[in-house]
């Protein structure tokens, strides 16, 4: 079965296989991290250049508690900001803590956008945190994160 189909039809099982590895399961069986692989920590560092990131109520992140379909998880990020020339949201980054490539979306904004808002759908390889990492025009970084459960559900 192709990995794509596998993910589509049953996000949960593939996810578990790729991400968590209970001691009983052979580590060798875990999917190799390809050229595209990027860990969460490395992704954050690449974006911030090592600058401090502050957890902030200004960033509101809307995600489901349980994903209806792990292949298309709706994510909404709204950042409280006047969006003026001197004070605006410069970028919204959506990251995941356990996907092979942690970096799901990077969106650059200008005051012309009028709102510090972005919504999309991302693929989740399994139960993990989704992180909204936001760069403000003053160069500071804010974030919010929430856990999303990916499951095969009430199956037989």
């Amino acid at each position, binding site marked *: *079965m192709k990995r794509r189909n*596998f993910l589509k*039809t*049953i996000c*949960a*099982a593939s996810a*578990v*296989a790729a991400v*968590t590895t*209970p*001691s*009983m*399961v*052979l580590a060798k*069986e875990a999917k190799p991290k390809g050229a595209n692989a990027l860990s969460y920590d490395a992704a954050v560092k690449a974006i911030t250049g090592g600058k401090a990131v502050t957890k902030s109520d200004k960033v509101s992140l809307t995600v*489901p*508690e*349980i*994903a*209806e*379909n792990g292949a298309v998880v*709706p994510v909404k990020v709204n950042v409280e900001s006047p969006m003026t020339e001197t004070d605006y949201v410069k970028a919204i980054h959506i990251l995941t803590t356990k996907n092979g490539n942690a970096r799901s979306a990077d969106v650059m904004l200008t005051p012309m956008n009028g709102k510090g808002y972005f919504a999309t759908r991302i693929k989740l390889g399994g*139960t993990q945190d989704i992180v909204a990492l936001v760069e403000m025009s003053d160069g500071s970084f804010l974030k919010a994160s929430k856990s999303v*459960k990916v*499951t*095969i*559900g*009430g*199956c*037989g």
Partner: protein
Amino acid sequence: MEIDRRDFLQIASALGLVGAAGGTNLFAGEAAKEKIKKLSFSDVVDFKAKGKATILHFCDLHAHLKPLYWREPSTLISAKNLVGTPGFICGESFQKYYGIQAGSLDAYFDTYNDFTELAKKFGKMGGIAHMKPIIDHVKKERGAKNVILLDSGDTWQGTAVALKTKGEAIVDAQNYLGVDVMVGHWEFTYGKERVHELIGKLKGDFISQNVIDNDPFSDDFEELIFPPYTIKEIGGAKIGIIGQSFPFTSTANPKKFTEGWSFALRHESLQKYVDMLRKEKKVDCVVVLSHDGFSVDQELAKKVKGVDFILSGHTHDPSPEPIVVNDTVIIISGSHGKYISRLDLDIKDKKVVDYSFKLMPVASHLIPADKAGEALIAKWYKPFEKELNEVLGTTKGLLYKRDTFYSTFDSLIGMAIKDEMKCDINFNPGYRWGTTVLPGDPITKDNVYEMTAITYPEVYTFDLKGEVIYKLMEDIADNVFNANPLLQQGGDMSRITGASYSIKISAPSGKRISDFMIGGKPIDMKKTYRVSSWGGNLQNVGENLDEKAIRPVYEVVSDYIRRQKVIDIPMESNVKVLDMDCGCPVKGATCS
């Protein structure tokens, strides 16, 4: 003398049924039998009325138009923090929690204790022709205009007559009972179009604030599919009723039925509707009609402010007393038509100042059947009578559903599938609906449908690697035993046949299951096993699906019973729980 709820709980003793010996069998002897007969309809409906408005409630009828036997669980295991709390108590711990007398009518309805013996004494439960006289009685007492009947869903699915009429027979029954408002879950497994058709036939309202359009190309993207709320005036008060359909429908049931609709708890939007009803619509009382599940609703009440009552469903719990979380009163009314709840509201100065509640058992032997209800049942059953009345065989022991890991009727289904499909391991869904067949009784085709009547009955046989099987079990275990009720989905563990395992409930996610044996040998993570399953979506992960072997589960099971003639299923579970010593632990996870 007034009889209140407490007295009713103790009705057996009030009537002098407590034997001098004080043993568990309170009904020994002919004299005691005589006294049981003295219980009557008035004992069922006796109630201390309050105020002017009354809400009647039932949930999870699962299409049972006729009375049935329904045994409550003898195993109801949960995460440790939830053990011993309403929603996770059964048997002895249930009797203790609510002060129920062993051997009483309440014990028969609410617990598994002495089930077979009490079934013979008290008879079948539920049935629309027996529910109706209770509803009529309350409407007569209070005035029909002051009473509404609310239905928390899982109403249209669960029996042959529902499946064969695509839910129509059940909507007819709801109109007969006078359902004013409902929400849904299994309703959605008839597909979007049929759901709308049936709502068109329903005289009441179908409401849900938590189902929205999920198609980004649709003009209605993120718009509501159903009206989110309705307002009813009863007893001179305005009652705002907000609907919560099952938040996990799209993961618990095949997505194809609800493609383009999105389900979730959506407590943020629920809060907005609560505030709007209070401030703009000036309602006197806010009710949430819910299919979230009892424990999820207890969490919901912590997140949402300003809800007076949550009328819950989904998890099938009988709850003789309401649960109060912050200022929200939560009730749930069992399942399968076993109970009708009565909630009287005393509303003064636009506020609920008092209420009274009773879970009324629909004890069919105590309630003379309503003729119109019997005629309705006869009409809908007539075309299918020949097929459904066929006696397939008999059972030696008790056949029941429920329990966290294992039940005898599931085991029978598993054996039937294994016998026909020649698989190594078989998965059966951990639904909480079904039926109970008493020892020595015939098993009819109707009974088999009562366990399996779904719109996706196909049994699939395919290959799965040991590693995948193991991880699936861990995933399912996390949906059942998660310490956070919001991450549970309200079912029981999938049942397996051909395998056994041990489980440590309190272990972290992904590390609960050990000693997993298939065919008597430890599971080989690299080996490919032949797996059969129905009612889920495991086939989507499998390979080498045998297309020719696909057959509806009710036909597979019926053929097996016909071949076997006499069914004898052991009561012992194939799952060992490592950190609980009994099936019905009390708070603190002990069994005393």
